[in-house]
């Protein structure tokens, strides 16, 4: 049986970065490298992994769509049951514009929220790698789907980078 995952706990971002580099050198594919921390580390290369996202464009697109649908909805209901008030046209552009504006914003907000929830999920096979020490400020760096023949090499690499401790979790453990 292969060892499923190996990870080390690091006291600071510098050693975590060394560990990530060592894993890459050892030939672990990028998607199998797992990093978990209690803070974002934007100033380190490992903290900038996966930072590309279409979220802003999705928000813009959703805002445009929501605004368009909102305007059509308002205009359609006004025409479907036409009730004149105050001498205004049945489809009154200014008031409908106010509602369209609010729906543009609501669309962008909801799209951002949904995109976040959907895309922040971890890739399959890595989501169980976690240690409670992370909450106390340790940084976890590890590799998922490690084959048995590689595990010793990876463990050594993690330890050399300056880990407090290196843990290998067995399947079903």
């Amino acid at each position: 049986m292969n060892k499923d995952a190996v990870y080390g706990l690091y006291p600071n971002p510098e050693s975590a970065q060394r560990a990530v580099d060592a894993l890459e050198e050892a030939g672990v594919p990028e998607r199998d490298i797992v990093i978990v921390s209690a803070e974002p580390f934007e100033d380190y290369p490992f903290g900038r992994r996966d930072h590309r996202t279409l979220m802003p464009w999705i928000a813009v697109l959703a805002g445009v769509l929501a605004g368009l649908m909102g305007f059509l909805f308002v205009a359609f209901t006004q025409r479907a049951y036409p009730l004149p008030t105050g001498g205004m046209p049945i489809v009154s552009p200014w008031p409908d514009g106010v509602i369209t504006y609010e729906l543009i914003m609501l669309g962008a907000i909801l799209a951002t929220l949904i995109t976040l929830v959907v895309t922040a999920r971890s890739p399959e096979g890595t989501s169980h790698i976690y240690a409670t020490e992370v909450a106390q400020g340790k940084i976890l760096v590890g590799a998922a789907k490690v084959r048995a023949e590689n595990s010793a090499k990876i463990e050594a690499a993690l330890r050399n980078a300056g880990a407090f401790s290196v843990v290998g979790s067995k399947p079903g453990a």
Partner: protein
Amino acid sequence: MEWRGGWSGERWVIPMASLDQDTLNRVDDDLLRPLMATSRRYFVASSLVGLIVLTAVAVFGYQVWRGIGVLGINRPVFWAFYITNFVFWIGISHAGTLISAILRLANATWRRPVTRCAEAITVFALSIGAMFPIIHLGRPWLFFWLVPYPSQRTIWPNFRSPLLWDFFAISSYLTGSVTFLLLPIIPDWAVVRERAHGWRKRLYRVLSLGWRGTPRQWNRLETAMHIMAVVIIPVAVSVHTIVSWDFAMAPVPMWHSTIFGPYFVAGAIFSGIAGLILAMALLRKCLHLEEYLRPLHFDNLGKLLLMMSLLWFYFIVAERLTTWYGNESSEMAVFWATQRGAFAPLFWIMVLCNFGIPFPLLAIKKLRTITGTVIASSTIVVGMWIERFLIIVPSLARKYLPYAFGSYRPTWVEITVTAGTFAAMGLLYLLFVKFVPIISIWELKVGLRATLPARAAWRQKAAPWSQCRDLRGRPNAGEAVLAANLMAKEPRE
């Protein structure tokens, strides 16, 4: 001397000082203490405000049962205390999300201990304010007729009505500000999850939504917060503009004014900052956050408050002077009622509360202390409530035909419900601090870590505080002081 850390080719050129374990533990302990244990004083305080809220709810029940005539409203003053509360609380809600979003976008590093406390005010004040258009209704049980949905009545709401705009604006704003508040709480709840036991552990396991803290999650969260900060500012501005349009769209003397939108938004931010300062002072005392909410924060917010006080004064002068100069008869009836008639005492108290007292307190550096800003904020909160009342009632009481002039006096029902809103704010806040760290733990740690080079520099007497820079070279003296205080027994500057 180069103190900026960075990745250069293969290894770190300058070994970074590390956030030591003691500091991390201390931040966690300080900020999570209210979540883990509850004192007797907490129970006494929350029962007290809870009792007032329950009384207000019961009084509202009485109002529904007896009829809305138990209020002091009459013809022609059809709106009074309830709508004043509506505008006031929606105004207070501009404290948080708007200010926090602006500070985020401006990358003001001192914001970190303040933002969550401000965003919570937004959510609660908005929820309280948004109740009033419902409970002031003649038939509140039919409030859902404002909601556009296909019904057996086969009729849709009137999208030309500013009340519908209110419905849409408040829905967007509430959704946005709840999201804005909750997103950065998730990583903090994950920390609580690991430290709590028993039912608390189970609760926070659910609340933290499986958060682990991978770079992917952090980056998505930061992007989402950035988008939310950009979106929430125009929403907040539109919300109070639309609230002002509830008045400005009606041809009522001194309501029908183009200045109302910006005037209301400025007033909202004004009262919002005052509310935020009061909340921060209370939290600082009650939760022992003296090291986190520092005089620096009160000083900075005090400067913002000073600017808004001047802006408010400018708006009131602009509004009054154009009215007086225009000398239009129906507007002058309202004008003189507020300047030297029945409403004049209230008007001049308002000017004193919003400008006369706060201006010197906030303008003179020596007086802009925590005590000074708290006194100024208290008078501003009172003054802004009066301001909303004076916008609504005198205009209605002096509307065109003198034969239909009227007056207004609140009844005990309106006064109790108004008191209930303040108690509700207190209750919601008390509950909030029991379940959420009131200062964002991870954002604070990011801030602390950013000050490390500055600390190192300071330790070597290499640079004075004012020249300290964070990792990205931004001036960061404020947090460097905070970091020094938190991390070591080093002398303060």
